[in-house]
């Protein structure tokens, strides 16, 4: 029945919480087609209705129009919710991955979504720059209350060379352990390069 494709679209998001499944162009197209179809049918029947009011024993199509209209509203709601929730997911990705997404995630975006993402990135950057008089404040770091200045981390991948803010260079190899200033580690922990070791 009508509304089924739209429901499948939403189910798809529901089954993949915290990730972004590939943009379902085909299904989105189907839902749109169904909306157009229902609207067209309603137009035709409402014209027939108008005429039958003038004539006699015509069929009353108003109930049909109401039911279809509910279908249009439902489809529209699912379409909007699909796109809205994907945008919210993209928003979180901007905070967690930064302004450059991994290529396999990028491939799951529609071109309109890619557009939105870069627009969001730049509005966020603009906002963060405007926060203080001198140069702004990066809100994507300092996510946890600071504790000790130095923490122990374990490197989870062969990352290669990494330059600290004092200019010294570290070689980050898989399973190597390091004792480093907390604020120099935060980003790499968030990116899954380091694991924070606590006892």
């Amino acid at each position: 029945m009508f509304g089924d494709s739209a429901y499948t679209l939403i189910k798809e998001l529901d089954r993949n919480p915290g990730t972004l499944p590939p943009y379902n162009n085909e299904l989105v197209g189907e839902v749109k087609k169904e909306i157009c179809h229902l609207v067209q049918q309603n137009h035709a029947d409402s014209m027939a209705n108008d005429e039958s009011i003038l004539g006699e024993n015509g069929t009353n199509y108003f109930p049909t129009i109401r039911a279809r209209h509910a279908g249009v509203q439902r489809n529209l709601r699912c379409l909007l919710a699909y796109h809205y929730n994907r945008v919210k997911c993209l928003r979180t990705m901007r905070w967690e991955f930064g302004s450059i997404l991994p290529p396999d995630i990028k491939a799951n975006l529609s071109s309109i979504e890619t557009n939105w993402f870069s627009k969001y990135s730049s509005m966020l950057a603009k906002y963060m720059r405007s926060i203080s008089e001198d140069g702004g404040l990066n809100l994507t770091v300092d996510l946890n209350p600071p504790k000790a200045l130095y923490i122990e981390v374990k490197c989870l991948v062969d990352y290669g060379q990494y330059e600290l803010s004092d200019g010294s260079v570290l070689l980050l190899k898989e399973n190597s352990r390091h004792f480093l200033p907390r604020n120099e580690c935060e980003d790499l922990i968030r990116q899954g390069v380091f694991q924070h070791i606590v006892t």
Partner: protein
Amino acid sequence: MNESEEINISNEVNSDESDSDELILTAAQVIQIMEEAWSNEKFAPEILPHKYEIVECILGQISHVEENLSNLINDDLRRSIHQMELDRLRYLVSSYLRTRLEKIEAFVCCILKEEDERASRNKLSYLSPSELEFAKAYRDGLDQHFTDTLKLLPAEILNNKIWQNEIITPNLDAFVFAKAKSQIEGVMIERDEEFVDLEKGSQVIISYSNISNLITNDKVSLI
């Protein structure tokens, strides 16, 4: 290290922008206000009036100390304590601003509508100027996104922009933990039926809608 190299922070900060009723706050008091604003913002379901002067003031202090830290190059101990304090302050401010940004995004249409109403009644804005600018950009971005994705639908649907009427609003009835900062009489707890008096320092769990005005009046804080 001799005293001249020591970092010196003026502990007196002028934080109030209004000339008529000038209020001198110490830096410690400014931090206190920031901490309370942070906690209130974390627990209030809706966005609260901004504390932009307080934020600016703390960020100003941070960069002031940072500039002076280089003078302490040969005293690791003092350096590390200053550094830790800066990290704490930076966390406080960032976390506060992040929480507000999340609310702005979640309730963007609702918040902008209320800002318009406040502006039309000459009331103080809840958003800081840069937050307001961000909010508008965010709303316009969403609007454009929906318009672009719904392309090819019948004009009567597109022109309706139904998503603009479907505003997500905060749940003002949400239950929160609150602490009375002074003696308060007659706080409603059941619609027009039951009232309680709160002693200074007492703590309760209560619906946000029953105390929201007491937060803006600085009579209770959320904990």
